[in-house]
Each structure stands twice: as C-alpha cells, then as structure tokens.
C-alpha cells in the first residue's frame, strides 16, 4: 500500500538523524572538556605574559633614552616595509562553525590592506584550514607549521618564533603580523591581528598599575644586554599566547557548533515523528476503510 512506503521512509530518516545527533552530542562533550583544558592552559600562561610585559616596559623606558633609532636593538628597529609576512593561526580540523572562515576573512582583510603599499606579502601558516585557504588563493607561503595538536607546549611553538626572528633580523622580512581567534568567552571568539615585529614595546601607560618606571633599578648585566635576551623571548611568548587563545577558541566554537547541530537534529526528529504518526494513522485509517468498505459490499449482496 502507498501509505506504508511513506511510513517506512520517514522512520528511516528519523533513525539516520537520531544517530547523527548522537555523534554531534558526543563531539560537543569532547569539545567542552577540551575547551576547559585549553582555557586552563591559557589562564596558566597569563602571569608570565603579564610579568614579561611589565619588565619589557621598564627596560624599554631605560634603553629608549636618546631617541636615536640606530642604537636600538634590531628587533625594535622599524624600517621601510618591502616584504610583510603574516602568521596565520587557524585550526587543523573543521566542524567549528564559522571560526576558521571568520579568521581567514580577517586575515585577507589585513593582507589586502598592506598589499598595495609593499612589494611582497607572504603567509606563514599554523593550521590546515588557514593554509588551504591561502594556497587556494595563490598567496606566497613562507612556511607551514601543521599539526601543532590540541594542547601545544611552549617548545612546540618556538620554531615559529625562531623563523620569523631569523627572517626579520636577516632583513628578508621587514614587518611581521600575527592573526588568531581571541578567546573572549565560551560563546564569543574574536579574530585578532597584531604586529609582532618590529616589536612595539608596551608602555607603562597601557600597563597601568603594573608599570613602575620611576623605580631606580640596578641592571645586571647592562639594560641593553638584558633587552637583547628578553626580546626574542617576548616574541616567543606572544606566539605561544596566540596559539593558546586560538586553541581555546577552536574548542569553544566547536562545542557551540555541535550543540546547535544536536539541537537542530532533535527538532527535525520531533517534526518527523509527528509526520510519521500522521502517516501511520492515515495508513491505518485507509486500511480500516478498505476493510469496512469490503465487508459492507459483501453484506449488501
């Protein structure tokens, strides 16, 4: 009978969607637990970053002195930007809603803004989603750091900082930016881009109470030498910070995306169940009518 086929079709769809909902629900739970861990790591890295910014601000205030740019540490010297490089941090895997698409869009905007003014723009990618995006659009790729994992260590991230410092100090690259999804809270991630090199030393003003440049420090060795060891660390720390934020963002975006997928699937199952019951009832009514009609026909003979 025609009604029976429709009933079976709807039942099969309900089954498919329910099992999809089970998968997305599981992924939501995994992402939630990974998000907590990623967030925890980002929080634990914060005291180092805060202290380092404060130390750097104090040192920079001491060494900036004369205002003569040539005496500055190489990592602080800005020059005419001919070659701009951009470090693009995205996730390796998808199913995270609009996270990577938004990041790619923000990165493209940054690059389009610089491209008319410089001779060369290149991309350093950390994350498959961003790499694929820029490969497809034919951008020059300077380097790729894939598969940093969900919980990268400081040591995992250091090669990225090493590379850009080398490129910058050797004069092959004149300016370096970094872009990542900043973790605002579990529901909000914000694409953020900032300049890595030349280093813009944080000033006391932006640090607020943390700064204390009016203190008369003893330096061992000289402030210049201290700065020379501190600055590469500062770059490493900023890259590490960006990667940790990006990972926390990735997990939270995935968690939200998977929750929405689960909710949507549940709603569909609800609608389909209604349809299923209706179709089933229709087919039963149809059968009953057939039987009743058949009996009546016999009795009337």
């Amino acid at each position, binding site marked *: 009978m025609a009604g029976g086929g429709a009933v079976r079709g709807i039942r099969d769809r309900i089954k498919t969607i329910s099992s999809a909902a089970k998968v997305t629900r599981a992924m939501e739970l995994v992402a939630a637990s990974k998000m907590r861990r990623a967030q925890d790591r980002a929080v*634990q890295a914060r005291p*180092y970053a805060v*202290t380092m910014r404060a*130390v750097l601000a104090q040192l920079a205030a001491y060494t900036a002195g004369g205002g003569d740019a040539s005496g500055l540490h190489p990592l602080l010297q800005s020059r005419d930007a001919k070659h701009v490089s951009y470090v693009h941090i995205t996730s390796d895997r998808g199913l995270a809603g609009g996270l990577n698409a938004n990041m790619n869009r923000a990165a493209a905007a940054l690059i389009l803004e610089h491209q008319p003014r410089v001779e060369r723009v290149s991309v350093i990618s950390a994350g498959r989603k961003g790499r694929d995006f820029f490969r497809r659009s034919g951008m020059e790729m300077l380097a790729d750091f894939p598969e940093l994992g969900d919980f990268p260590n*400081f040591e995992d991230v250091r090669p990225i900082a090493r590379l850009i410092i080398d490129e910058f100090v050797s004069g092959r690259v004149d300016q370096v930016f970094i872009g990542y999804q900043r973790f605002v809270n579990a529901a909000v991630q914000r694409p953020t881009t900032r300049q890595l090199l030349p280093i813009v030393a944080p000033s006391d003003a932006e640090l607020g109470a943390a700064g204390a440049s009016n203190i008369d*420090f003893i330096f061992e060795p000289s402030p210049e030498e201290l700065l020379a060891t501190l600055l590469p660390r500062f770059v490493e720390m900023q890259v590490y910070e960006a990667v940790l934020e990006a990972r926390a963002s990735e997990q939270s975006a995935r968690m939200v995306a998977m929750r929405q997928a689960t909710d949507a699937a549940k709603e569909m199952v609800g609608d389909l169940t209604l349809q299923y019951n209706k179709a089933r009832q229709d087919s039963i009514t149809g059968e009953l009518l057939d039987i009743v009609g058949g009996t009546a026909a016999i009795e009337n003979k």
Partner: protein
Amino acid sequence: MPLNLTIVTAQRTILEEAGVTKLVVPAAEGQITILPSHAALMSSLGIGEMVVFTAAGAESIAILGGFITVANDQVSVLADAAERIEQIDVERAEAARARAQSRLEGRGEPPIQGGLDVLRAQFALRRSLTRIRVARRRAGGATGVPASR
C-alpha cells in the same frame, strides 16, 4: 617585611610564596642573595639552583635560565624553565647528563661539529647537573647554600 616571591614559566606558575626571608639566586653574573628591602634589581638568570628560605625551612628549585626583577620586596622570576624537587625527572636528567658528557668527550652520536655543538652540549650538561643536584635534596633533606655552579 618578608619578600613576596613568584616564579613563573611560559606554561605555568611554579611557585607563589609570600613569606620569603631569604633568597639565593643563580644570577647570570654569579650567585646573589636577596634579603628583604633589597635594592631594585633586574638581572638575567643562569642555570643553577635557587634556594627559597621561609619560616618553614628551605626549598631548592632548579632554575634553567630566565630573568629576575626585585622591587619593593616583590620578587618576580621569569624562568625559561623551572622545576621544584618533586617535578624533576631524575632518570631523564641522568640520561641527559650521560649523553652530554659522552658528546663532550667526543664519543657521542652524532659527533660534535663546531663550537655551537660544544656550547649546546655544555648547556645540556649544566641543565642536567642542576636538576640532579636539586633532586638530591629530596633524599638528604639538608638544603643549604648551593655549592659553586
């Protein structure tokens, strides 16, 4: 007023201690002792043992490079790496020591090529020796001012 000490690495906070009465630090220019009301200081750190004295006793911590700032009895250590006694993997440190030593004696694989490799092996040796020395405090319990680095 005792010193307020925090030791942080890029990955985590290693120690936060408010009641520090004395601090022996492996500064890059040599070992220094910091007492309350110390003058404001900014220094880079070498590889060595740091000893934190409190009313409860002394604790040794392996410091593997970094920075220290002292200002208004607030001591901040930005360590490249730092490990408390219970965090030290002695077996790993012993293995690293053996590896570095054999490399420096010209037996290691791959062989040392040039000064940078020598420097690397020397640093690896110092790091492992520091870890081993600090870890030994666990067994002995006696923590004093560390011997020369």
